[in-house]
């Protein structure tokens, strides 16, 4: 594992109020040269904790929580004395360590039945191991020969007619985000009536208009799909009423109780005209 962190070139160069810090706390278990790593390199509390454990060759699976907690708090105190703004994550970790430590100090209740006694350190170990795997994975990735660092894309200028470019592709999720954006802006301007409809009514409205596109008109009962049962009939009926309300269809009934004939309100040739145009495009 070649080091990318350059730990060989560590020199503690820490300034406090513009003055080099010469006197480090004497009881600090951590070598002072680690201080500069601390300041620049740690990626967060897990990283720091892992460092503390690895520095002492401690078995991560059997963390001596009391010792680690002590060192961790020392580090935090040092960071504080150096006026480094402590991120909430570090304090959270300190609290967690303290909690584990206190739970370990409490007498264990005798295990009931054959229940496994759950070690308060288990969750911490799990997170530390997951993070350690990640550091290895990241390192492995960084060692791969990479475009732009270890090899370079070559190209020649191509100022020639290529095949016509294909239109962009969209994912459904992009459409959803677009709707979300609309909603967000809608909240700001909030001028629209709020109303929610099930999509199936909307889908059915389009289906019905599609039927009318293929014929001059259809009988109302052709719109229903018996296999959909009562719910389907209701959806179709609501769709028909919605279309009528928005003046997109007309009803014709020759005489009372005769079948109801539905027609599109647009001259059919207009509709077909636009369809033909669409197809030729």
């Amino acid at each position, binding site marked *: 594992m070649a080091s990318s962190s350059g730990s060989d070139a560590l020199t503690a160069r820490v300034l406090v109020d513009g003055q080099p810090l010469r006197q480090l706390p004497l009881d600090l278990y951590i070598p002072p040269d680690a201080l500069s790593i601390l300041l620049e390199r740690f990626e967060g509390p897990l990283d720091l904790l892992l460092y503390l454990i690895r520095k002492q060759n401690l078995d991560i699976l059997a963390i001596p929580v009391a010792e680690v907690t002590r060192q961790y708090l020392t580090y935090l105190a040092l960071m504080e004395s150096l006026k480094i703004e402590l991120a909430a994550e570090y304090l959270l970790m300190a609290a967690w360590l303290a909690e584990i430590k206190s739970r370990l100090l409490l007498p264990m209740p005798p295990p009931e039945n054959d229940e496994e006694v759950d070690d308060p350190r288990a969750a911490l170990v799990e997170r530390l191991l997951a993070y350690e795997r990640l550091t290895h994975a990241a390192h492995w990735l960084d060692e791969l020969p990479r475009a732009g660092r270890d090899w370079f894309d070559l190209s020649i200028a191509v100022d020639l007619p290529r095949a016509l470019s294909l239109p962009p592709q969209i994912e459904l999720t992009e459409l959803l985000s*677009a*709707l979300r954006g*609309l909603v967000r802006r809608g909240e700001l301007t909030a001028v629209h009536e709020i*109303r929610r409809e099930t999509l199936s009514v909307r889908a059915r409205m389009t289906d019905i208009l599609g039927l009318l596109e293929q014929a001059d008109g259809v009988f109302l009962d052709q719109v229903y799909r018996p296999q959909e049962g009562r719910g389907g009939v209701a959806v179709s009926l609501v769709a028909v009423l919605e279309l009528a309300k928005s003046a997109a269809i007309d009803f014709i009934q020759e005489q009372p109780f005769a079948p109801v004939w539905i027609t599109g309100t647009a001259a059919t040739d207009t509709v077909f005209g636009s369809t033909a145009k669409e197809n030729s495009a």
Partner: protein
Amino acid sequence: MSDQPSFLAPAETTDSALAALVEALLMASDAPLDLAALQRMVGAETPETALLDALRRLQCQYDAHPFIDLKMTTRSGESTWQLAANAQLAPYIARSEPPRAGRYSRAVLETLALVAWRQPISRGEIEAVRGVAVNPQILRTLTERGWIRVVGHKDTPGRPELLGTTSAFLTDFGLGSLEQLPAFDAFVGQGALDV
């Protein structure tokens, strides 16, 4: 000649290595390079004359290449060099897999989303929700893409067109039917939009 190989060979090697370096740099660069840029990369100890020799060498090499030219462009007294495909390559390039054009604008995405979830919808209704006029180009784009179509007309003044999605829309988005569009529940309660 046999008594001079040690003089000729290294010079030969160096020259061709420099030409190879210049070649690789030209190809690795996205834009044409001028002498100053080449010199910065190759190293200041390499004189411009050596670079010009290398370029001349490459010139000869690519003169013999049926599809790639070394192009020199002089702009306001400054020459730049670039390796470029020539017209002989055009018929082959034309058969390449067509590249995808960039992305659709937010306006296009929003319009398509409204047509999909709120169909049949008129242009006026789209404008009411989006708060801006619908650019006819947007509808043309979506129609030409085969995703939306006129499904009817409203019987109100102007007989506005009602827009809906096509079966190609369903196919392209991997949907079996319109009912498979994801539910919109996430937006209920946030209200303010009729979707």
